């Protein structure tokens, strides 16, 4: 462990910011915890047998076989971000292993907190072994940082083995001077399921990411859901990609985007490369104030027997819908908030209640501040 910092050492403000990104510092409804403040690992622990939460360094020392998983799903040569992370002599990040057959009801939580440093780099590896089911929440936040700038470079590699499942819920709670570059990819084997959920309702200077799921095993499933709000000054270039390489593989990419003056580029790409595959891409955008929502859905089918579809719509709140609710007694603001709340209400099949509640709670915070 590289740092003596404890959770109790964190300032009240830092604790609050961390909690807003879905991290439970009392660890009540969580099965394990990893906290990294800048480059210092604050805590790693796991109470649940069968699921290990380790720092990257400790994991590499403990398991020799882990080397095969390092820079496998994500190439270290992909871009400047991956190169920067790969060049680190003292790599940080977490490794979570759900051993064969393990199952957690309470999620494992990982908190990546940018406190003072200019750049936080992490390299995470998450493995669900055969038949394992792993639910994770990753809260990424920044605190006493405003005005100083900073960046988060995060590489995450997910490996979902035969009949295994990973749900990964990421809630971002940065500030308007932070740039964030996640680089993540997953490899899903036979009957494996990968659910990736992304929520960002708070300002950020720039987020740029395009996680890729490669569905290598028959009947594997990937579902990406993103719920984002972009405020003035925020630039969000978001996407998700699914490569369908085995019969029966299916993918769904769902985005709900709201701009209140910021920029959202919503990309999506599904490639159907073998017969018997299905994919659907859906992006719905609401423009509440002049900004930009640029939806770029791509579907690419190269064989007979792959079925791919997409649906994209960008618009404003419909007056007849608002007035319909007003005719039931809600004032204009209440009616507007109720419709926006409904717009963002993406129920994610297969997600534990605790995580769905956490997603709902971050939307609630935004709703209370008037979206």
């Amino acid at each position, binding site marked *: 462990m590289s740092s003596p910092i404890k959770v109790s050492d964190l300032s009240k403000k830092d604790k609050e910011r961390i909690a807003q990104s879905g991290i439970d510092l009392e660890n009540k409804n969580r099965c394990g915890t990893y906290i990294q403040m800048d480059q210092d690992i604050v805590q790693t622990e796991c109470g649940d047998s069968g699921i290990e939460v380790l720092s990257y360094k400790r994991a590499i020392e403990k398991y020799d076989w882990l080397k095969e998983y390092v820079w496998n799903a994500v190439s270290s040569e992909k871009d400047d971000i991956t190169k920067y992370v790969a060049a680190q002599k003292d790599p940080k990040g977490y490794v979570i292993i759900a051993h064969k057959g393990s199952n957690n009801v309470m999620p494992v939580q990982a908190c990546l907190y940018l406190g003072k440093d200019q750049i936080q780099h992490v390299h995470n590896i998450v493995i669900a072994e055969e038949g394992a089911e792993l639910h994770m929440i990753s809260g990424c936040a920044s605190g006493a940082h405003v005005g100083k700038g900073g960046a988060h470079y995060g590489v995450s590699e997910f490996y979902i083995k035969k009949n295994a499942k990973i749900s990964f819920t990421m809630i971002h709670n940065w500030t308007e001077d932070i740039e964030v570059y996640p680089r993540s990819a997953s490899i899903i084997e036979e009957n494996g399921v990968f659910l990736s959920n992304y929520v960002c309702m708070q300002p950020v200077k720039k987020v740029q990411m395009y996680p890729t799921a490669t569905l290598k095993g028959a009947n594997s499933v990937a579902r990406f859901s993103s719920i984002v709000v972009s405020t003035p000054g925020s630039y969000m270039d978001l996407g998700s990609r699914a490569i369908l390489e085995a019969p029966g593989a299916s993918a769904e990419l769902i985005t*709900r985007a709201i701009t209140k003056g910021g920029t959202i580029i919503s990309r999506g790409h599904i490639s159907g490369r073998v017969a018997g595959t299905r994919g659907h891409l859906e992006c*719905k955008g609401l423009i509440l104030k002049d900004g930009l929502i640029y939806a770029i859905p791509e579907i690419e089918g190269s064989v007979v027997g792959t079925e791919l579809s997409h649906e994209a719509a960008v618009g404003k709140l*419909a*007056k*007849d*819908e608002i*007035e*319909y*609710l*007003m*005719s*039931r*007694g*809600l*004032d*204009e603001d*209440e*009616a507007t908030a*109720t*419709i926006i*709340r*409904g*717009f*963002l*209400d*993406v129920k994610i099949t297969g997600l534990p209640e605790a995580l769905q509640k956490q997603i709902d709670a971050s939307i609630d915070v935004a709703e209370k501040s008037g979206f």
Partner: protein
Amino acid sequence: MLQIKNLHVKVGDKEVLHDINLHIGEGETHVLLGPNGSGKTTLLMTIMGFSNYTITQGKILFRGEDVTGMHAHERAQRGIGMLFQRPPTISGLKLGKMLAAISKTKDENIPELAKSVHMDKFLERDINKGFSGGEIKRSEVLQLMIQNPDFVMLDEPESGVDLENISLIGTTIGSLLEKDKHLIKRRKSGLVITHTGYILDYIDADKGHVMCDGQIRCHGNPREILKDIKQRGYKECLECRHP
């Protein structure tokens, strides 16, 4: 309860309602008849306060208060409610969530009320998305049961409803209008648009009005008017220029 005086209404640049006068007393239910496009729905939407309908002249008084310049929610909060013929679909907003939002108190047992109009399985569905004609009407009735308005406007409550459900809708609307109460105790009033008149079996309307070309042309016993229209159509009403 509701008084309309010399009302003129424009939609866009075109005047569609001309000099409407109507008085509906407490406990009374009136029926509005008329051919398609005659302005019946426009009148209801104007009374409800929808912004596309511009009042250029005249007044709407509700319980003596001038509501002409009020927004829809202010009218709703004063006790005006409406069953829409074609309500909008709201993508993502669940019926149950909407009912919770319009519920005035926490005491209302929404699942129980939903069950009473066979809508319990729709609480987790997006409002009106993929609903059949009958389901839309049951959803509207359910919303009104929670809203519990004193003045209920019903825009073709029976259209699209199958025979099995028409008595359910009819009886429920009957209770919304307190038709189960003695005349003297009845406080709720209504204004109903109907083409078929089936709904009249459940709500015993007091008066009927015929609207043609944006004017109310005649008044009378609703069943007699309906019988007349069924026999002779609206031809004479359309020709009639002197109500």
